């Protein structure tokens, strides 16, 4: 259908539209018109992606493709879903438009060369690719046909060299799978084809890292022009992604690996000195001239960029004392030695970067400037040495990463050395962490460079906190609610067990057998009354282990198993995937199942429990972060000092967004229904509750705020019966939730009249 949003013709791929989607488009259009950033919260299942894509693509058609849409997703799965949506939209666009949209991912997801793909991890695929496509390998192969190269890359290169602007990809929407099959049929390398084509594409869908992590962003997203519209979807954790992009942690294994790398490199240098000393000399001369890189690198040689943000990188020549390869290696050796000595500490140490650099200077004799250039110098050296198996050199890269970051930033970072894990003090596991506290650092270049950045998710409440955390000022920030024909979500706050005693996971209460039993009784009552799947979220792995053990001893678990099978999330990905598979099977065949999972875990973030896979989700406790963690404490302090955000506020905000994320797993569309139980007395307090997203709060009746187990059971039974009745999907009269083209016309006319 076509609709008008404030004078703009929007092409929408479905026959009818939800009213909140129209609202959403209107706000989005205003943000684009104003050329500013926007923060939009809309519940999942309301077609956020479809609304976003339709409006922005229509807008760019209107502006005759002057700008690109950069759409960032968290996972490959979401990327595919977005591209599928886009393809549907493309088929509804007016015929002469030639839209080119494609997804970009790592080599692991795009490569079609069977030899390369046989590698296991992402890094080893990258390295295997480099082994076949690095410029020196190819020039070697030119003289000696025995040297293996990648046939896909070679034929791609031949096609691409026909001219820089040859459009290799006909217009259309390409998912990763399409790119692979296109590459296979043409015999071209899909990865480099995609890298090349994002320059010409109208829509690029890729991962957050390609914009936020400076190491990747400088390589991939450098050429994007200012007029681009950037969308971060499912962005409720965007501050954590930003922080991770600038944080480094070094363990004992890293340092040992780094030492090995150094030995290997020095052997390589010795060999090179004997055979081809000219190459080393050439590098030296280049560095004297102040060029860290040798001119324009071939696309295949481009490696991860500098970890610091582009504005902060020094545009100077590499300092004299590390220009020579042997000298640089000895500097690195001293650095690794120093870090090793720091790891030997017996107690936890926290330091700021300035003191740390001063300490390195006095103890190891490496000044700040040398540290700053570590990363670029290493990069240059590895190119000179023509090292292709980059995956084995990850360790020394991490150390250089660390050195560059620690010397570049004085504020917003701290160095924390922990000799053992707080929770397992008996096992020595020293770790040195450079942790970034300021999420605004990594995202600042994105806000500065691009005209419009749209941050959107199902849970962004409280919506005023994000601008403060990320330090930007949105022109539009709004939270939308869901229009429903029936009350298909039923949130409840359970504060008491059936014996009227309060339940909570507060530290002093969580091990109380009464609380454990009450939680167990709650689960037991619910498994008997709720069909198919139930998902339970606990606050942490250790708490889950503890309580499941106690339930087992009390015999509660056995009673639960009479009604439903029990599956547990573990830290092992393979095991969890298997458990999830079997959980789904048990839900399908009517046996029913319970899934025990952990807030902040993999399952809570990425797995949907829609329809019968999750009729009820129970959130046991408030998922606060581990408050004694040094990193968290340091970050809280920084937030208080810099952004005036109170510790309590931030902790509650973070806990509640996790809780909302967990319970939001059960409802993925309007036809779906599900119950959510917040089982902790603290949820009934206003300061906690008010931080839940609006679409949950609007369904949280006052009568459901202070329930005991038996009252909750009664409500659950009534709710399930009500939801099982047939209903009219479109709604009627004023509660219309599915609008046709005429309805939208009428609505906009009505709006005109009121103005």
């Amino acid at each position, binding site marked *: 259908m076509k609709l008008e949003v404030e004078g703009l013709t929007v092409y929408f791929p479905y026959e009818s539209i939800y009213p909140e989607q129209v609202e959403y488009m209107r706000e989005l259009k205003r943000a684009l018109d104003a050329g500013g950033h926007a923060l939009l919260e809309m519940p999942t299942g309301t077609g956020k992606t479809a609304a976003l894509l339709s409006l922005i693509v229509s807008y760019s058609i209107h502006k005759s493709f002057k700008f690109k849409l950069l759409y960032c997703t968290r996972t490959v799965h979401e990327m595919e879903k977005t591209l599928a949506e886009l393809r549907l939209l493309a088929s509804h666009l007016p015929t002469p438009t030639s839209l080119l949209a494609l997804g970009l991912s790592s080599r692991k997801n795009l490569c079609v060369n069977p030899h390369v793909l046989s590698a296991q991890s992402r890094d080893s695929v990258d390295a295997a690719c480099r082994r076949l496509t690095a410029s020196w390998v190819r020039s070697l192969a030119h003289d000696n046909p025995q040297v293996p190269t990648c046939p896909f890359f070679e034929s791609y290169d031949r096609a691409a060299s026909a001219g820089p602007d040859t459009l290799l990809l006909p217009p259309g929407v390409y998912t990763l799978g399409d790119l692979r099959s296109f590459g296979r049929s043409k015999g071209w390398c899909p990865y480099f084809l995609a890298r090349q084509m994002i320059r010409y594409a109208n829509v690029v869908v890729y991962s957050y890292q390609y914009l936020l992590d400076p190491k990747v962003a400088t390589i991939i997203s450098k050429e994007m022009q200012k007029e681009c519209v950037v969308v971060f979807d499912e962005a409720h954790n965007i501050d954590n992604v930003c922080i991770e992009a600038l944080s480094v942690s070094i363990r004992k294994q890293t340092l040992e690996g780094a030492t090995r790398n150094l030995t290997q490199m020095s052997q390589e240098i010795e060999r090179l000195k004997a055979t081809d000393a000219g190459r080393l000399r050439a590098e030296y001369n280049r560095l004297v001239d102040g060029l860290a890189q040798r001119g324009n690198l071939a696309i295949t040689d481009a490696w991860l960029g500098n970890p610091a943000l582009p504005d902060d990188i020094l545009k100077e020549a590499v300092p004299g004392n590390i220009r020579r390869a042997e000298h640089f290696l000895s500097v690195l050796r001293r650095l690794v030695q120093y870090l090793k000595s720091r790891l030997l500490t017996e107690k936890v140490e926290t330091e700021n970067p300035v003191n740390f650099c001063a300490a390195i200077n006095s103890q190891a004799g490496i000044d700040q400037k040398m540290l700053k250039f570590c990363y670029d110098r290493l990069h240059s050296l590895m190119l000179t040495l023509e090292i292709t198996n980059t995956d084995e050199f990850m360790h020394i890269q991490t150390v250089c990463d660390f050195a560059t970051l620690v010397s570049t930033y004085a504020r917003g970072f701290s160095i924390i050395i922990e000799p053992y894990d707080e929770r397992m003090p008996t096992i020595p596991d020293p770790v040195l962490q450079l942790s970034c506290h300021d999420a605004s650092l990594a995202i600042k270049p994105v806000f500065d460079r691009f005209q419009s950045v749209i941050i959107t998710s199902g849970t962004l409440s409280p919506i005023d906190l994000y601008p403060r955390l990320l330090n930007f000022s949105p022109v539009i920030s709004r939270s939308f609610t869901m229009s429903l024909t029936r009350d298909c979500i039923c949130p409840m706050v359970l504060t008491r067990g*059936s014996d*009227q005693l309060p339940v909570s996971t507060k530290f002093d209460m969580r091990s109380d057998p009464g609380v454990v039993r009450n939680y167990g009784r709650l689960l037991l009552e619910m498994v*008997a*009354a*709720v*069909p*198919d799947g139930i998902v339970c979220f606990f606050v942490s792995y250790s708490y889950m282990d503890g309580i499941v053990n106690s339930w087992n001893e009390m015999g509660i678990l056995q009673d639960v198993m009479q*009604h*439903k099978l029990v599956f547990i999330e573990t830290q092992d990905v393979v095991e969890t995937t298997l458990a999830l598979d079997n959980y789904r099977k048990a*839900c*399908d*065949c*009517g*046996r*029913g199942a319970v899934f025990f999972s952990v807030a902040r875990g993999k399952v809570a973030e990425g797995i949907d429990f829609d*329809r*019968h896979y999750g*009729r009820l989700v129970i959130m046991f406790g408030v998922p606060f972060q581990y408050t004694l963690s040094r990193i968290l404490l340091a970050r809280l302090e920084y937030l208080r000092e810099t952004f005036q955000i109170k510790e309590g506020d931030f902790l509650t905000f973070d806990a509640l967004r996790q809780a909302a994320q967990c319970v939001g797993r059960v409802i993925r569309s309007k036809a779906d229904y599900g119950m959510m139980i917040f089982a902790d007395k603290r949820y009934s307090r206003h300061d906690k509750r008010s931080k839940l997203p609006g679409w949950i709060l609007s369904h949280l009746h006052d*009568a459901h705020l202070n329930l005991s187990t*038996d*009252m909750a*059971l*009664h409500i659950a*039974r009534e709710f*399930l*019966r*009500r*939801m*099982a*009745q*047939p209903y009219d999907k479109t709604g009627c009269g004023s509660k219309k939730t599915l609008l046709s083209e005429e309805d939208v016309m009428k609505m906009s006319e009505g709006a005109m009249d009121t103005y």
Partner: protein
Amino acid sequence: MYGAGVAFQPTSSAGGSSKEKKRRDEDDEEEEDDNEGKGTDAWERAYADERSWEDLQEDESGLLRPIDTKTLVHAQYRKRLLLRSSTGGSVASRIQKGLIRYFYIVIDLSRAASETDYRPSRMAVVAKQAEAFIREFFDQNPLSHVGLVTMKDGLAHRLTEIGGSPEAQIKALMGKLECCGEASLQNALELVHGYLSQIPSYGHREVLILSSALTTCDPGDVMETVQRCKRAKIRCSVIGLSAEVFICKHLCEETGGTYTVALNESHFKELLLEHAPPPPAIAEYAAANLIKMGFPQRGAEGVVSICSCHKEAKVGGGYTCPRCKVRVCELPTECRTCGLTLVSSPHLARSYHHLFPVAPFDEVSPHGRPGQRLPTTCFGCQQSFVGQGGAQPSLRTSCPKCNQFFCIDCDIYIHESLHNCPGCESQHNSSV
């Protein structure tokens, strides 16, 4: 105890707001949990069983008054009638219906059936309504056969063989009411599938599962069984008592049945009775084919003969198969010896009306259109529409064909029992 103390209160403070009523309702739930196991006092039980507060409703001014059940029933009836005529096709489009049904009722007697959210228990309610349903079923489908299967302890058990007599089925059902263990959907379906695959091809195979349980413990892959039922053209329907279960929904969607969940006892009854009228015929059977049937004579009084169904000597009564002269006790049935379908002509006649239903009557506003004079009495019963003492005139309807007016009671009688419109019939006579 907490529960007992609260339970006593409401008798003294009857007129509360709806919120209070709701709370009381919840309190009652608690009380009932407490009461399980320790036995209740007589006064308490009376209170808990009758649930007298449910018969009250609040009017606009906040006063409590008994629910006007009559208008409610009428409204429900109209709704059902319209729904049936819209889904079953209008009179004009004459949908073929499967009149000869082989119908298995699967009753869930698993642990979940002992729950007391229906009064006195789910099991008792199911049994009571199943009894009413079986009678109604035979009334509407005299040519059909019913059998009973129970699910308990993870097994399915055939309670009665498929047969044409309501009394035998009901007797067997009432004797077997106790519940324990798990329900197994797969076992029940396999059992029914085994029996239904033997019946003649013209018969419509149907299963109705009255399910209390929310889980099913199956020995194998239930999905395969669902597919087998689909291939065997068994129409499976489920009525749930507590919540929607995915596998049941899947089963019904695959096999073309209906899946409904009951809100309360009266709703359950309503849902159950929806299965009494015959469903539209499955396309494969729609091709008309002739069925050989026998119309047996009633045996003379005082003649002693050995009946073929019970294998024992009986005096008088019974029917004799016209082909092989064997004696059977009841109709309709299939002859044990020659396999001939035995019916009586009234059975056929009674099934006939499903094919030509009376069109639903239009509702007429009590005051009519301006300029139109409405008759003051019902064409059927000659009762005055205007109630005594100037009361609100009752709902009236008119037949779209003969434009005669009927009161709602006659409307129900015409559609549910008579299956002929008196207005149209008398018109027909006068024109001839």
